[in-house]
């Protein structure tokens, strides 16, 4: 019984790694945009769902190979994110509207996108034509090949984000804008171009996260990312707004904590654990694990 309990916990750590991978993809995407534009996007959860539906439409309706469909859906989501930012948000940003305008606007956008998805593809659950494969035993963990692919993909994406932020001029400009937008602008950084690229990257990462999320949950509907959005918010705030490395660390912590807690309490209340973490962070350390000056 004792060893059974331990192996159950270890097994849930394995699932925790999968959740952490999905969460890392999503929260790094959100925190990059949050840092550069300095407002949160409440429609981000629907970006995840939209990319999942793009992939489903391309793979099961247009009969493209799943991998190609997923790549196309991520790129499409990047373009859609730029389009929404240029078409809707830009109007309010350029007029220096109060912050709550943008919060309400993105809130309204989430309602529009979720219902648009429902109008096009219906409210029911959808699945991919994808065999999950039988679980492989790796030490104490037992994970399916797809889950291993997701973990590998997330690690690759994190390395790519790290290289982009530390080696490319785009990444450096993004960090500069996140620290101080006005200073970045007078230093000759083309802030509009950087913002556009940021929206493209955040859209692609949201797409990747959305596909990974829906592959792990197997079936999904237009409301699938609604409660996951708060786990993403928790990771972003825990990591410190605009701090991609903080978001990665927070995603790892939250992913494993929520999955292990599901062993102790019912898995129905998994997302509530993330919420408790969010509240504790806000009360004790609102600036996040890694503090961001001027953003708390």
């Amino acid at each position: 019984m004792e060893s059974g309990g331990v192996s159950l916990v270890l097994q849930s750590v394995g699932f925790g790694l999968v959740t952490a991978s999905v969460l890392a993809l999503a929260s790094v995407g959100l925190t990059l945009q949050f840092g550069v534009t300095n407002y949160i996007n409440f429609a981000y959860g629907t970006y995840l769902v939209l990319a999942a539906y793009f992939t489903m439409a391309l793979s099961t309706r247009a009969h493209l190979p799943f991998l190609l469909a997923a790549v196309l859906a991520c790129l499409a989501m990047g373009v859609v994110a730029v389009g929404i930012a240029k078409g809707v948000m830009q109007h309010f940003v350029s007029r220096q509207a109060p912050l709550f305008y943008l919060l309400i606007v993105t809130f309204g956008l989430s309602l529009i996108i979720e219902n648009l998805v429902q109008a096009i593809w219906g409210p029911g659950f959808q699945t991919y034509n994808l065999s999950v494969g039988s679980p492989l035993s790796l030490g104490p963990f037992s994970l399916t090949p797809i889950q291993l692919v997701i973990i590998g993909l997330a690690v690759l994406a994190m390395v790519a984000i790290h290289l982009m932020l530390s080696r490319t001029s785009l990444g450096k400009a993004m960090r500069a804008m996140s620290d101080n937008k006005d200073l970045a602008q007078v230093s000759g950084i083309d802030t509009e171009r950087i913002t556009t690229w940021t929206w493209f990257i955040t859209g692609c990462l949201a797409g990747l996260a959305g596909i990974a999320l829906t592959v792990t949950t197997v079936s999904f509907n237009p409301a699938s990312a609604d409660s996951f959005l708060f786990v993403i918010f928790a990771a972003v705030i825990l990591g410190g707004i605009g701090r991609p490395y903080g978001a990665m660390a927070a995603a790892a912590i939250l992913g494993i904590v929520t999955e292990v807690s599901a062993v102790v309490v019912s898995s129905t209340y998994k997302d509530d654990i993330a919420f408790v973490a969010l509240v504790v962070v806000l009360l004790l350390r609102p600036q996040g694990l890694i503090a961001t000056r001027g953003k708390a």
Partner: protein
Amino acid sequence: MDLILPYLATLAIFFFVYNILTWGLNIQFGYAGVLDFTFITFVACGAYFSGVFALGPGQKSTGFEWILGLSWPFPIALVMGALAAGLLGIVIGLIAINRLRSDYMAIVTLATGTVIYGLVSNYTPLFDGFDGLAGLQTPFTQWLNINYNQFTYLWVGFCAVVMVICWFIAQRILNSPLGRTMRAIREDQEAAEAFGKDSVRVRLIAMSMGAVLAGVGGALLMGFIGAFNPAGWTSGETFVVWAALIVGGRGNNWGGVVGSFVVAVLVNEATRYIPPIPGNATLIPTVRNMLIGASLIAVLWLRPEGIIPEARRRFYQLPLLPGRRTPAEGVGSAGS
């Protein structure tokens, strides 16, 4: 006639209830600038608690279970529902309202609402989970011996009386020193704090007062329909009240009346009676939700102050001082 009058009476009830709801959100957001993205949770709190105070005890064996079940007269149950919502407003406010950036307020309220929604839906001993409360006898009918149509007209009158009371409460707060402090905090939190105003405490009061009105509205819905379950308070319903407030105009209660008529009655309730399109039953609610989201964005884009803007309040200025212009002032009115 037999069909149109009860239908109009039903619309009137929804109009009166949404007036109360919009004023409640107005106290929270329009007066004090609290971004409450889970307003419908307070409405649900009022509905559930008025329900369990008015209903008889639930019995697990029959598949109906809920807490309390005291069979109290409905008007007292309504007050209890409003108080419960006000308490919940303080609890959520204590987590959400602090001196941090306003996004946090929005995130925490929305997250709290989602958690409460999950808890109420899944934990059946509280309010019978997804099935929700049901079987509340229409209030007053046992004393008056009237049929359902007559009850509908009676309920229009009851809602109107409650609405007028709520109007006086909302107007009283608006024009009181407390309301002025709320608006000062909304405009510039730091400046208000520099003048010694406790912004957290004042915003908590606003959150709780708004929640009380939400609870009253929820209780009125409960009394009218006699049942309440999680399908009635999805997060999309919060948008309806938000859209009513933003479209009508925030910071003044007439704006709330116009907004609740346009959004909550014309767009939201009246479209419920369009027969579903064959083969795509969910299309009309879907389009309605998109319309509500779009109206929020369109109003903030084209006329951010809403249909009825908040009246600018004039204060005596020393004539020798150079005309000061605040960002909220329109061109031409400054320095007068």
